[in-house]
């Protein structure tokens, strides 16, 4: 009997010990903060794993539309609240070179994190303008503190734990998540079907330059999108475009009004020598060398 009492006592003590392990969990007690939660990533990656980006960009050179609507997600840290929380976002005039009403539409400076939610999305409409042609404009969005939110994430550098942003030495310098930079430019990128060698300048189209590419599209009535795939830009079409360009350049050169590329040399296409070997010139030929 004594032994049984002893055993029951041991069990009871053990149970008491287990109870003593229970702790009361602490709720979140930090300050609620606002920050730009802009992410980008490959389509095959779940968006929640995309890398955070401290900047956005619009390259009108590779777009057909003249108007782009950009979205920016703004995230609130802390627990959702059962009431709407307003905040203010403004364009920072000190750092912005884009012009409101021209390069971009005025936008709503008041945002709201709705009751029960932790984020909202801001949008801004940007227009292609002459000012972006060959230049890069900056539009800087600035979140502001208020009674609901602080801005304490000023050491941007965290990734989404899975993928990190692709650094751009020109644009990736902002470490403050309360600020987001939108870079806008209209610079043509080299299309997938561009047939030419940048180093030697040889090939059907020769060295790529935005000036040459623009002139090609202007004279042939082709679009940037058509150069994206050999389905729409097969080799024979490239050859025909090269011939038209070469004929134009030869005529201009014969009229002593040579078309110069961005580097100051005479614009080159391989078909120059096909059309008129005697009047053709090699890649990177200067007008002085040609007319000498």
């Amino acid at each position: 009997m004594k032994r049984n009492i002893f055993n029951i006592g041991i069990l009871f003590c053990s149970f008491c010990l287990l109870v003593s392990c229970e702790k009361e969990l602490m709720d979140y007690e930090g300050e609620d903060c606002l920050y730009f939660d802009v992410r980008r990533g490959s389509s095959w990656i779940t968006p929640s794993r995309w890398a955070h980006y401290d900047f956005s960009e619009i390259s009108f050179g590779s777009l057909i539309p003249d108007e782009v609507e950009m979205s920016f997600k703004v995230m609130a840290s802390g627990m959702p609240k059962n009431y709407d929380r307003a905040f203010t976002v403004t364009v920072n005039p000190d750092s912005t070179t884009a012009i409101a009403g021209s390069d971009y539409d005025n936008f709503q400076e008041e945002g709201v994190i709705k009751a029960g939610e932790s984020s909202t999305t801001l949008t801004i409409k940007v227009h292609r303008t002459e000012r972006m042609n060959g230049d890069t404009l900056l539009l800087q969005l600035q979140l502001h503190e208020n009674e609901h939110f602080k801005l304490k994430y000023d050491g941007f550098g965290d990734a989404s734990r899975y993928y990190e942003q692709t650094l751009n030495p020109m644009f990736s310098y902002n470490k403050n998540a309360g600020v987001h930079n939108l870079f806008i430019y209209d610079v043509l990128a080299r299309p997938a079907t561009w047939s030419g060698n940048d180093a030697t300048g040889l090939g059907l189209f020769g060295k790529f330059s935005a000036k040459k590419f623009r002139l090609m599209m202007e004279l042939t009535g082709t679009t940037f999108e058509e150069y994206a795939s050999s389905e729409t830009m097969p080799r024979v079409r490239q050859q025909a475009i090269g011939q038209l360009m070469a004929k134009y350049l030869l005529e201009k050169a014969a009229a002593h009004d040579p078309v110069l590329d961005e580097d100051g040399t005479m614009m080159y296409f391989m078909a120059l020598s096909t059309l008129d070997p005697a009047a053709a010139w090699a890649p990177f030929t200067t007008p002085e060398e040609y007319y000498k």
Partner: protein
Amino acid sequence: MEKKYILYGIMTLWGLSSCVEDEGNYELLPINEAVVSNVEDEYNKLSYVETLSISPVIEGSMGKLDESKLEYDWFICNNGVSDHVHTHIGSEKNLEYPLDIAPGTYYLYLQIKDKTTNLKWEKRVKLNTQSQFVRGFYLFGDKSDGTCGMDFVSMVKDRDTVVVKDIFTNSVNMKGAQDLVFSGGSWNNKSVSLWAVTESGSYSIEYSSIQSSFDVREEISEDKFIFPTIEVTRPLKVINTYPHAFGSSNQSLSATNRLLLTEHDIYGTSIYDEPEAYGNPVNRYSASSSDLYKVSPYVFYPGNSQGFYRVTVYDKTNECFTGFNSYYYSSSYSRKYSNDTETPFYFDQTHYSPVRTLVYGENGYGNSGRSYALMTDANGAYYVYGFIASTTPSKQFAYEMDLSVAIDFEKATHYAFFSMQSVVLYAVGSQLWGYDYVRKDAKMLKDFQSEITYLAMDYNSNDTPTDLIVATYNASEKGIVRKFTITDDPNKIEITPHEKDVWNTDLKVAKVEYRNSAF
């Protein structure tokens, strides 16, 4: 204490009992299994037109089976045609299955279940279905309402030749059939095409033999694959592609090199890893020129060739035969032949007075793939030129026709050159004539009592240069397509009908085009 020992004893026995091996005590008795007979191991059928009929005989391995207790299920397995799926196609003992399935290899499963014992037996059968459109002749022409239609003379191995009627949907309501051009098969399926040429335009047509009917490929239009950067006459209308398919195997002479003839111009390309596309036309005399000459709708190359190399075309603007420096590039251009002499004819027809011009051209099979050019002049005289197309064509002969012998030749609507002899066939109304331009002998070969709507040599389908095809039409008997053999004799002009090769159609046939391609 004793209880403890008893407990130990029981546990030990329990443990020991697990060591006893159960060797069983079975008495195996044979059962009456279903044995299926009257079912072939393999069936060969035509997709879309035939029905598979199977009447299995079910017997028991130990005597008669009570069929009232049996259930039947037929499944078809499409493995090898598309994603693997077993489809239930019947619950009766006998199968009647219309083969409305794409050509390919299938397996059929007959499952027999004894409802009383739940025992199942299975019989597997292989089913090969083939397309009726792999080999035969397209018949392209106008229906009585003027819209274009298409029949197919299906010539499937081990089957009777049948005319499959009205295979063309014609969703664009095209009218006025003029020509139908099949490129022939090739390893490069990017270069396979079927073009319908009509008064209302030209259309790329579906050609895949696995289909049950065909329509226009609306995603293919001239503006989407012809990209000139010099000014050309629009709208663009494809009227022919070269090379044509060759021989009964119907392979294209080139998987890559193509010439595309439009109503006004001719284009060249090489098709490799990209879709068929064309740049600037070749009918100009320098790469930098934008002056395009009018090209006649014929491309000359040796009809017996195993490849597609140098060709000759006719410049209608300058009235001369001409070649190309090359034809694979947008920078290609035409080049007139040098050292032109009258022996036996000039390339440049302006040397003649009056100037001669091309009426009709044809590439023959016999005599080293001789090409023929039928010429005329302002005086109404006709001439036949023979030559072998090459970098510089090898001229063989020129004969003036004796129109007092070749009755009504100037009224002819269709021509065909018999490449083994010096004979040109021509159609005038319902009459088929033959004229020997060397012996100056003519003969009316047959009066069909119906308008001849198509006439051509057929040296492909039977690999013989002596076959010819004639299509006729009248309102009551509609269209009839017949094959003949022309006698290969220098002293005779004679044709013999192929008794079995007579095909009736509702169409006023404008083109009979052979195909033999699994594409």
